[in-house]
């Protein structure tokens, strides 16, 4: 746990070695960009399974699938965060999270990178910097050296219009 740049997979710790509070972020890719969501809000990570398309559904809904008997709506995260990006090469992963109203929502992403810990100093708020539809889903940007991770506002992302 010495180097905070490492991808950490052990049980989450609340403080960095320097004693500062850290945030644990599950990072994933869409196209060429890295995104992250708070680890505590991800219930599980699924391999892509049979997703049933729902006719007449909004464009950013891929469809529905079941997880141990429970129905999960799978959202096309790309449509919301990276509308222009080409589809990923891998089959992808589904991050299961819970929307504000308790509904289980799956976020379809290209690849899961792992868990990273960021100190507060590494996180820059984006409020007022970005504009447009996508910006409302973005909470802040975390930097480590050259690597930029866009932290996603799950509450906004999983609201359906």
């Amino acid at each position, binding site marked *: 746990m010495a180097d905070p740049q490492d991808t950490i997979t052990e049980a989450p710790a609340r403080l960095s070695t320097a004693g500062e509070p850290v945030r644990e972020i599950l990072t994933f890719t869409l196209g060429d960009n890295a995104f992250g969501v708070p680890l505590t809000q991800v219930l599980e990570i699924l391999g892509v399974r*049979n997703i*049933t398309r*729902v006719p007449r*559904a909004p464009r950013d809904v891929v469809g*529905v699938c079941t997880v141990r008997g429970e129905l999960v709506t799978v959202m096309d995260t790309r449509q919301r965060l990276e509308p222009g990006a080409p589809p990923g090469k891998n089959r992808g992963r589904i991050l299961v999270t819970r929307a504000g109203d308790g509904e*289980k929502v799956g976020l379809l992403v290209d690849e899961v990178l792992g868990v990273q810990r960021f100190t507060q100093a590494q996180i820059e708020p984006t409020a007022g910097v970005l504009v447009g539809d996508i910006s409302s889903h973005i909470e802040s940007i975390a930097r480590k050296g050259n690597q930029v991770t866009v932290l996603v506002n799950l509450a906004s992302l999983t609201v359906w219009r």
Partner: protein
Amino acid sequence: MIEGGDKARAEFLSEAQELVENLSRNLLSLEQGRAGGGRVDPEHLNEAFRSVHTLKSLSGLFGDKHMSQLSHRLEDVLDDLRLGRQQLSDAVLDLLFSSVDVYWQILTAPDAHEVRGVQELLERLEKLAPTVSNDSGDLDQYEIDQGLLSVLTEYEEHRLLVSVKQGLELFLVRVQFELATLDKALTEIKDRSKPFGEVITYLPAGEAASPDLIELDLLLASASSLSEIEGSLSGERVTVRQIPRHKRPARSVKASPKTGGPKSRSMTALPNTTQGPQALEGAEEGALPDPGLPGAGLLRSVSQTVRVDIHKLDELMNVVGKLAVLRGGLSDLTENARTDGHRKLGSQLGHLAHKFERSLRELQSGILEVRMVPLAQVFERLTRIVRKTSRDLNKEVRLVVTGAETEIDKLIVEELSDPLMHIIRNAIDHGIEDADERQRIGKPAVGTIALNAFQKGNHVVIEAEDDGRGLNSDSLLDRAIQLGAIAEHEAKELSRADALNLVFLPGLSTREKASAVSGRGVGMDVVKTNIAKLGGSIELESEPVIGTKITLTLPLTRAIVTALLVQVADGMFAIPLTSISEVNALEESRIRVIDTTEVLSRRGSSLELCRLRQLFGLTSETTPARQFVVEVMAGTRHLGLVVDTLQGQQDIIIRPLGRSLNQVRGFSGASELADERIALVLDPGALIDEAGKSSSRERGGRLRLNG
């Protein structure tokens, strides 16, 4: 997870609620009994008393001060009533009904401070002093065994005196029961003698022919003759004897009600007659129900009842669903074994799969059965609403209920309460005229709302019919034009039935002024939406002056549904069997196009078609050479869904689509199939609405019915 304390509290609330409902039901029965000729069934008073008695102990246990005080006081009043020390007057009945309202407040208020009127009610209850005194003089004219009289409880003595005052004859019915089935047999004979009179008490007679039998004397008060009673109660081991009247005056029983008379023949089997029937509990005949509290057997049967959270049953149903998936796997395995040449193994597996299937079905129907409850649960609440609403509006309304015993899934019953309440309130507020107006147009002063429920196949139908003024289609049209839902020229083309359906438009009210009772036009569209959520449909008929009839058609259960699976392009869809009336191969030659709507003509009628491929924008590389028409219905409306292939039937558990897919019309949910694929479950009602809308639009130009 809820904590233990909360869980206990939730149990307490649900039990208390049941008891208050029970109290309310019995009060209503009492009121009806009084209205219908004055005869009051004492059993209703007893039931009410028992409910309050239990409420008292419960509230004590949970430290609910308001409820405890109220129950305490109410118990005294009800005790006075059942012992005849208090006359059941309108004023008393009103107080009792107010108590029910206060109980509801206590049970539903989040905070004890918000409960109002408790003190005032307590004071008014306090003021009810006993008004009647018992006089036992009339009893002297009968040759009643003093031993028997001496063991009567105060209540039984009161009932006996009431019967004698009414000039009833007294009979002694001697019966022999098997000890093992005593409770049941006793209830049965009480029920059988009920049409003739009242069983005042029963005592062991102690002359049973075998040790497995018990002999009882039932003291019956009746207006019927000896031969009539013999005729109806006859059976082996039953003898009826009339207690004769005599001229010479006997000593008053009141003087020694409980001091123990001379030992009678009928009491010889008892170890100690002076302690009365309560002492029987430990007697060798086994446990008898406490006759001091008739129906005390009820307390015992309660202990055999388990209160279960309905969601636990949902979880069990999920397990059934998973087992069904496993069964699918087992069938595949069987098939594999057979094709791989393991014939013996295959047939053994097949046998096992068959047994598994049968047990699974039993399990499934068992769970469904547990979920079923009579509609009476919700109808009783409505009775109370009719009473209150008609009073508030100063109208006289009679509610006639039939089919309250019809059973339906508990979850559906819960959700029915609000829609039915809306319908009934609307009927009283907007439908039923006030008494003066009714009499002016030659209607009976008292308005009637009939609530009929019955089972029809896999559906339950509930009709709410009033004899009020009916809906005014002109003012509905005016409002719809005002709202901009239809244009004036369209209004002229609408049939009366279509015009009436405007009442389901959001935000439409025919009343200029909102009323406190049914509010302003938030009613019927919400009712329709809520009924649709339950997989049901709603229809409305109305004739001016004659009245309005609203028909709800609901599935028996939503927990598990048998569905027809159909394929359209690459998509798999499930259609609940309950809403399918027919399935046929599609004959293109029979299709006619009216405006832009495809209609299938057949046997003199026609059926509007809806091609799911087009509706859902589904395409596949190959177009099937042959398609099928699945005719679905909602209430009386039909629609033919055109699908590619039929994939057989399956019992499915419908899961609602999440909020994100709320806006997607035409589906009531999705279901995981036995092969782990997902089928979307079609909502025939919504599809029919949609088809109706689009065809009306094509006819009328711009019509937006149902929003």
